[in-house]
């Protein structure tokens, strides 16, 4: 559902297992630890926020520190702060590299070509999307045949295309090949090193490494799930609860709580609320064929958000039965009470029974999405 993003330090740990060079470094969760690490490394360091958002450098999440003193100060500034909305609780303190050149190497999914594609560029250390837009000719693309791994010779050819010769072709080739192996074995949607640094000594070191594991493949990566359990704690608690209940839920910042059946329908509902001048508190999809319990779980999660002033339930029942939905709603009312005004749009399979159950319970339901969305927005405005 989310694409399991891995922290830089975790990606580097995986990379090391494949023989890829990463800067010598250690994790710190306090300014003192950062100081100790800098002291231990006995060289200028880089202090890096471990967050899952991209673009942390520009947002102040990466600081250079020449001395242990400065490392401690940098750590003090970054720890506990928010980088692009994400709170920083861990830092990676690394030996600073002697950079000769910065490259980009990445393995991505090409949706329209329906295959993995290897990307490489001599322009590293900058936003690759910018490069792709401004100077696309500077990015070399090698689509990878389905079911086949990248061969070492193909990786060496790519290294050559990046302008390298002799032993560096072998070393960079090996790096690229092993990055692809790691990506493949971990079912990565994305695995990139940006920048991939060529040091003044001619070595290739992954200064940064980013991996996103295909959520849908997690069933075959149980160890990874356990190892990265701490990633879950970075998520808002309601998102964790929703995950446990098998619900697709994304917290937003408005006050109209939304529950619907079908991702497209829910997105359309969010859009409609926005168009009518309101703001959705969340996205929540109960999926197909949701029974009363599922509906109850979803409502509980959504209502667990204190920002929610109005609840909007939008159901277009195909396999999902309207009477089941009504029962789920009543279950929640009995269990925790419906303290917020609730707008329900209920059509589809068994809609008559469903509406009847609600009517008898004193809960009105509407027929069109437009009417329901307008009502929800109106109630939210009134609640302020």
């Amino acid at each position, binding site marked *: 559902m989310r694409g399991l993003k891995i922290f830089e330090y975790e990606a580097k740990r995986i990379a090391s297992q494949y023989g890829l060079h990463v800067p010598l470094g250690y994790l710190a969760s306090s300014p003192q630890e950062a100081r100790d690490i800098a002291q231990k490394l006995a060289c200028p360091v880089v202090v890096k926020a471990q967050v899952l958002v991209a673009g942390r450098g520009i947002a102040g999440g990466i600081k250079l520190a020449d001395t242990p003193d400065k490392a401690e100060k940098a750590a003090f500034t970054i720890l506990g702060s928010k980088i692009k909305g994400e709170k920083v609780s861990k830092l990676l303190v690394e030996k600073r590299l002697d950079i000769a050149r910065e490259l980009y190497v990445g393995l991505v999914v090409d949706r329209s070509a329906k295959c993995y594609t290897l990307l490489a560029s001599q322009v590293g250390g900058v936003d690759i999307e910018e490069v792709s837009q401004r100077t696309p000719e500077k990015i070399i693309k090698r689509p990878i045949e389905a079911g086949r791994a990248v061969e070492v010779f193909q990786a060496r050819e790519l290294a050559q295309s990046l302008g390298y010769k002799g032993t560096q072709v072998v070393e960079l080739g090996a790096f690229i090949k092993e990055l692809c192996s790691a990506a*493949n074995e971990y079912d990565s949607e994305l695995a990139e090193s940006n920048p991939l640094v060529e040091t003044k000594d001619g070595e290739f070191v992954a200064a940064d490494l980013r991996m996103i594991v295909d959520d*849908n493949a997690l069933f075959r990566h149980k160890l990874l799930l356990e190892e990265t359990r701490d990633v879950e704690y970075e998520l808002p608690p309601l998102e964790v609860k929703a995950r446990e209940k098998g619900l697709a839920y994304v917290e937003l910042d408005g006050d109209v709580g939304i529950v619907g059946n079908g991702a*497209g*329908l829910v*997105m359309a509902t969010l859009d409609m609320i926005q168009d009518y001048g309101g703001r959705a508190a969340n996205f929540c999809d109960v999926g197909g064929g949701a029974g009363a319990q599922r509906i109850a779980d979803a409502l509980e999660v959504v209502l667990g958000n204190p920002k929610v002033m109005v609840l909007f339930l939008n159901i277009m029942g195909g396999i999902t039965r309207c009477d089941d939905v009504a029962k789920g709603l009543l279950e929640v009312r009995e269990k925790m009470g419906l303290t917020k005004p609730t707008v329900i749009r209920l*059509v589809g399979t068994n809609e008559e029974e469903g509406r009847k159950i609600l009517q008898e319970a004193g809960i009105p339901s509407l027929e069109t*999405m*437009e009417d329901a969305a307008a009502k929800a927005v109106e109630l939210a405005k009134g609640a302020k």
Partner: protein
Amino acid sequence: MFHTKLMLEYGTKIVGGATPGKGGAQVEGVPVFDTVKEAVSGTGANASIIFVPAPFARDATLEAISNGLNPIVVITEGIPIRDAIDIMAQAKERDCVIIGPNTPGIIAPSGCKLGIMPSHVFKEGEVGLASRSGTLTYEIAASLSRAGLGQSTCLGLGGDPIVGLSFVDILEMFRKDPQTKSVALVGEIGGNAEELAAQYIIDAKYPKPVVAYIAGRSAPPGKRMGHAGAIIMGRSGTAESKIDALKNAGVRMALKPGEIATLLAKK
């Protein structure tokens, strides 16, 4: 199986089922076989719909492809990207049409359904409807039917990042289909399928009116909105990009699902 019964009732000729280990059983009067190979030789089946859980879907789909079934509707949600890539490559090699995965299927309101959509919202007519959604598709089909605008064929392309038939593929099929007089596309954030469709419409000087609705204008970047393929990555896959591209191709854009019917009624 629940859906087998509904499809049979709708008029679909379901002639067999394949579930390894369950050969010899009967479901809704339909024989079950241990392998697709046996099912095909025993029944003469030529198409398939797959409900196998995600961890085993690659195997099941490759089995169907390998036995010449075409088209193949893959209902399953949650198939890993790597598996989907393998499936599509095999399908391409065998010239096999895959619909989905993570799709409600395909329906011709004249009496054939290979899918799980609620039949009652569809009505026979001349609008070709192709969507990346499930229930949103039913929502739009229902409003089309209410407005007297029946559908020729309606299908879900699937909510995953890697799918079989694309908007471009289906636009081409609708172009050649005499029953389809206009086309409605329902897209969402993520990927560039709609942008590619827009380019195709321009290049082909598309001869039939096309209208479209794109869900996810209010979606934040970087978050997966339910569907595995519904995510704005960096600057790619925004609703704005799709809306602009389609508008530029002369496609009339609906701002809400119900407007699709209104736009088509206007012509």
